[in-house]
């Protein structure tokens, strides 16, 4: 199972930017390595990540094998009302995983 650590403040000020911090357990196997027997290790990376707040898009990213194993990402968001922040990502197996956090705007 892929584990995700999503760090966001529980409470933020309306209209004030805040950081969204993310760690994903994923090998980000580049597809360019060989194993001890000399066989190519198949590529297995997180390809795309999208962050939405309720239905609005916050941030999107296409990832390549140059992103380090166990991807780490910080970006900024800004909201005007309370709601749910969600992170959705897809890897080479097509697995879609979603992680959510409730954020209260005051």
């Amino acid at each position: 199972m892929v584990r995700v650590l999503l760090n966001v403040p529980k409470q933020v000020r309306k209209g004030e930017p805040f950081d969204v911090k993310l760690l994903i357990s994923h090998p980000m196997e580049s597809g360019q390595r060989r194993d001890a027997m000399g066989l190519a290790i198949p590529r297995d990376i997180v390809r795309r990540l999208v962050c939405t707040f309720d239905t609005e898009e916050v941030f999107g990213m296409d990832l390549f094998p140059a992103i380090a194993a166990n991807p780490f990402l910080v970006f900024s968001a800004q909201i005007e009302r309370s709601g749910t922040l969600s992170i959705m990502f897809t890897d080479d197996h097509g697995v879609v995983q979603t992680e959510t956090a409730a954020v209260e705007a005051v």
Partner: protein
Amino acid sequence: MTGLPPRGACVGRRFLLIAAAGTLLPAIAAASPVQVAVLIRRLIGDATVSEGRVKLDLPVLVENGNTVAMTVSVDAPIGAVHSLHIFAEANPLPEVLHATFGPRAGVPRIQTRIRLATSQTVVAIARMRDGTFWQDSVELLVTLAACID
């Protein structure tokens, strides 16, 4: 989770370095500045790229190319940046990431960790909503290259 990833020729490289002053790193196929220039041209079309506004933060001396901390920020108000694009001139594949900022994005700044196969130049391009493009680049020295052989 990634407890014990399959290992290739990477095991004990540091000891080889210690014993042999780094002469044993395998050669890998690399991208080139020309390839990056082509990708950038495809991104910007007929526009031109100016130096400035975007700032790429990378250590000049990299301890281990497997995991290099990178921060990219743009000197622009919230909402003014459309996207950020990072390229590494001497990685096996030149593209590192493309990031887009949506209507709920905050300050135009991202932080992540990247792999660098060898000493090289990394280029950041910012595309603004007004259609202009800005760039920054960092040339860095990698003492222990990323394990992508």
